[in-house]
């Protein structure tokens, strides 16, 4: 059995120390990391392989330039067997913003790898489109389930018993036929830290670079229909009364306010 996991390198920004240009946050204020949701997807794949006594191969796929290999090594160190990195000079931000482009690239990878199960994060923490997994499933013409917070794979029955995390503390219990794409919600498991041994092993694992030609994807298949017209920092609308001063002073103000609200322990 083979599991394909998507692992995106995302940009993060500091709390309040950044500037924006028309296209987005200025590059110098960005740092890069593995997408939080993908950490849980990676853990789902790796722990499933371990439960099956490693009769399961876990392959990660990342769309990104060479600098994403740092993040990919981290994924390999957590137990993924090998990695694929898709990149081509024809890919740019406008192309990657259009989910049809991403789905076309990932579908080409899936065709090459024939996974039984594809795991993606629900969304990416930077642009938060939340569309890749389901768009990929529709492109591959296979089953899917979005926002899974529990996954039990029954390989013999070719079925995944999943729970989808709905709003308000409710879960949908769903059976999905394999092959399938599942989008994984945070909290589904406890993502591991890479061990020293894992980090050493990761250095010897393969990261296969693939371009459009390798994937038989024509440049005309790349769509660019969404464009960023401007970027801004939202204006604060705070009307809060802020208590200022040293911690003992603000604590006094808070305590007084809480007593005025009638909140006190008996």
């Amino acid at each position, binding site marked *: 059995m083979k599991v394909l996991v998507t692992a995106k390198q995302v940009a993060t920004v500091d709390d309040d120390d950044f500037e924006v240009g028309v296209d987005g946050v200025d590059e110098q204020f960005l740092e890069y990391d593995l997408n939080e949701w993908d950490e849980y997807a990676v853990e789902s794949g790796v722990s499933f392989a371990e439960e099956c006594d490693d009769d399961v191969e876990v392959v990660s796929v990342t769309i990104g330039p060479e600098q994403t290999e740092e993040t990919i090594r981290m994924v390999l160190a957590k137990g993924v067997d090998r990695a694929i990195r898709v990149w081509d000079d024809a890919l740019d931000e406008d192309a990657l913003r259009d989910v049809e482009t991403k789905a076309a690239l990932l579908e080409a990878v899936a065709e090459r790898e024939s996974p039984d199960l594809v795991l993606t994060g629900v969304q990416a923490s930077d*642009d938060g489109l939340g569309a890749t997994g389901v768009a990929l499933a529709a492109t591959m013409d296979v089953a899917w389930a979005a926002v899974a917070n529990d996954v039990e794979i029954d390989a013999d029955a070719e079925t995944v018993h999943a729970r*989808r995390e709905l709003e308000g503390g409710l879960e949908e219990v769903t059976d999905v036929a394999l092959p399938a794409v599942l989008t994984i919600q945070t909290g589904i498991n406890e993502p591991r830290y890479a061990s020293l041994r894992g980090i050493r092993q990761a250095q010897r694992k393969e990261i296969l670079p693939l371009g459009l030609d390798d994937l038989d994807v024509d440049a005309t298949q790349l769509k660019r229909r969404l464009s960023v017209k401007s970027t801004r920092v939202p204006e604060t609308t705070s009307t*809060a009364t802020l208590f*200022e001063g040293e911690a003992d002073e603000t604590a006094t103000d808070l305590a007084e306010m809480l007593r005025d609200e009638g909140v006190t322990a008996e």
Partner: protein
Amino acid sequence: MSDVLVVAEHRQDSLRDVSFELVTAGRNLADEMDGTLDVAVISGAVESFAEALSLDGVDRIHTVDYGDEFNHDVYTQAVTQLHDAVDPTVLLLPNSVNGLDYAPAVATRLGLPYVSDTVDVEWDGEGVVTVREQFGGKVETVVGVDDDAAVVSVRPGAYAPADTDGTASVVAFDAEIETDAVLTDVRGFEEVAGGDVDITEADVLVSVGRGIEDEENLDLIFDLAEALDATVSASRPVVDDGWLDKGRQVGQSGKVVTPDVYLAIGISGAVQHVAGMKGAETIVAVNTDPNAPIFDIADYGVVDDLFDVVPELIEQLG
């Protein structure tokens, strides 16, 4: 031919709020286009849903009487067929958990561009222009769509719900659902086990977020709660890490709470969290980041380290 088509959402015999919010968003957009607004409702008690959705500004309602609850394969097929029949310029879907489960598939099947999780959708005379958030709300981007038609999903809570009755015509739409292509079997719903505490009953909640940094530090929060005779609740990261059980989670996927006083300690106030606590009477926030969105809805606040303020506060209350 229509201009805007909205797909309503329901669960367990009730239309969800986002359906009425989408009607507001759809009507605004249709007005800018000088056009019509169609609404579709799929599965469940479609006739009574259609009655409730007959709101001011809705021109036509399409009902698809097939099955009871949401199944994304059924929705994807039905919405794709409705799109072919109605031919809207903009298809507006909810960015709810179920929206996440079918909107990208509909866009893929229709070959249309997809913009998700928008907080504003407008028509600038030539195309759709949307506003989206990035980096958890720290940045807003204006995203335009360069195509003749688009699929756009709208964030729940971004628009006020439509509530004025109207006189829409109701049309039954005969979707042909190919059962071989229904690859998921929705077996039912289950409530998440609540644990031993009911946070929805509490008058005072001390709620803890990512700022607590470590499970060991939770003692501080429980001490504060004790000093206030309050109940401890949490935002998502604390529950995801397994430090508190799911029954204590406040927010979109957790509980909606309306206490007299809500103390948000080390909580940034992501939109999913705010959805669960904005109804609290008095909101107090302690956070190191002065730009944290929690201060936008707080009545009182302290911009400081919780590890400095909370121990002092416990002492002052003691």
